[in-house]
């Protein structure tokens, strides 16, 4: 019974099973991604990165995906910012209900949501092209943009805008010089939260365009499925680096 007492007494130890679990299922797998991208049957190699940068196909898809992700992020920002702004403004609307309505669709499986979008486009006899792709992406990730902005706007001290008004600023200047700068942290995290999933999704693009448009995520998945583990890992590592950079810059900006 003594060991049991020690175990219950020293509660630090309780985190150890989790630490071991995470080492096996989170750390080790990520190290394996790095390992497989540089090591194959023939030993160390950078062949797979050369393959990526030399094959116009994959590099084009990569740039194209970044482009789609940027457009999606921009549309989300343009549509989402006013939503967040109106919701945070107590004189308009009932924010609690609105907030719930915006988040509710997120609780539905992303594939079902995507298929529902396809159904909508079919129903309205619209073509499933890049427009559909961007619409579907915006539809899927818009709440990720609205939420952080809404949060920062809601926490903003209302006396600041009042003070600006008292000092003679018109509505536009109040927005431009007070509200907008103060909401930038929310905007940055919104951008990161939309950009990251957009660049890494694979099934969504496939279903939305009937496999006509290929995104980077799809290319990774196809390679892994085809058993090209080393090339797939190298592509994953590239994606991981992009994600790391995005979140790094996102965090950096939030702190400033």
């Amino acid at each position, binding site marked *: 019974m003594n060991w*049991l007492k020690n175990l*219950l007494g020293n*509660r*630090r*130890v*309780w*985190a150890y*099973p*989790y*630490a071991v*679990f*995470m*080492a*096996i*299922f*989170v750390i080790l*797998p*990520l190290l*394996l*991604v790095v390992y*497989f991208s540089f090591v194959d049957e023939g030993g160390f190699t950078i062949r797979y990165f050369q393959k990526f940068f030399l094959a116009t196909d994959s590099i084009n898809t990569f740039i194209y995906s970044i482009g789609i992700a940027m457009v999606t992020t921009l549309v989300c920002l343009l*549509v989402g910012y*006013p*939503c967040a702004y*109106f*919701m945070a403004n107590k*004189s*308009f*609307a009932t924010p*609690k209900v*609105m907030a*719930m*309505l915006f988040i*509710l*669709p997120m*609780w*539905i*499986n*992303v*594939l*079902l*949501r995507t*298929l*529902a979008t396809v*159904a*909508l486009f*079919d*129903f309205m006899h619209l073509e499933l092209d890049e427009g559909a792709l961007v619409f579907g992406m915006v539809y899927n990730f818009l709440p990720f943009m609205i939420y952080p902005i809404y949060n920062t706007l809601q926490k903003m001290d209302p006396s600041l805008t009042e003070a600006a008004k008292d000092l003679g600023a018109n509505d536009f200047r109040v927005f431009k010089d007070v509200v907008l700068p103060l909401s930038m942290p929310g905007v940055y995290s919104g951008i990161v939260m939309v950009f990251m*999933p957009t*660049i*890494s999704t*694979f*099934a969504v693009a*496939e279903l939305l365009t009937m496999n006509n448009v290929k995104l980077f995520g799809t290319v*990774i998945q196809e390679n*892994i499925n085809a058993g090209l583990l080393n090339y797939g*890992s190298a592509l*994953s590592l590239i994606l*991981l680096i992009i*994600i790391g950079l995005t979140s790094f810059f996102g965090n950096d900006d939030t702190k400033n």
Partner: protein
Amino acid sequence: MKKFLANAYLWLVIAILYAPILIILIFSFTDAKVLGSWNGFSFDLYANLFKGEAGPSLNSAIINTLLIAVVSATVSTMLGSIAAIGIYNMSRRERRLLTFVNSIPMINPDIITGISIFLLFVFMGVTRGIGTIICAHIAFCTPYVVLSVMPRLIKMNPNLYEAALDLGATPFYALRKVMFPELRPGMLSGFILALTLSIDDFAVTLFTKGSGGIDTLSTYIYADARKGGLTPELRPLFSIIFIVILVLLVIFNMRTAKQAAAIEAKKGGDK
């Protein structure tokens, strides 16, 4: 006028967000094979779904999804809660390190989590199946449990547990009677979060399910959609899931609103 425009804009965005869902809801009440054509009102698809006539693979996909979700959410909740207590009692450096590791699955895109765990199973030579799916789900669900239990621990008076021990409670008794009731709300929300994350997951499941023919709802839908037509019975299933979530969210929000009101009232009374 401004208020009207602001509201009009908000409702317009909401209407667009809900249009696809509405289409599926409406067309769940007709037995047309193809979505978008209306064969007259009927409950046939619902009846098929409940009688299990939608096909054995859809039935097993539903069962698999629920089984995986319940098992991984239960394990995640236990593992995560115990870990949270441990992390809370760690030195600052250790805590920083584990908190960082804890955040990795949350930042990582699904596809990377899926592929990296897939590589682990390939590397170790493990045959993929329902067990590997559950392991992967535990890996990405547990961090959320840790994060939901942590605030409860921080809010809790750390002396309570020690006091119970001083008063002669066995550690296990103190854990059950003092610690557990304090942490229960955090554990519950962690469990629910894990449940929904697991049910919702697609990418990680796809990479860890192997070729043994095990499908969850997500991977079933994916395979189905790639074949071309979507099984019509998915429409009522989707509608039911949507309504259930809607009701749950409303209840949940009403409860938190009530609790908030109660706390406010109590605060007012204390003054």
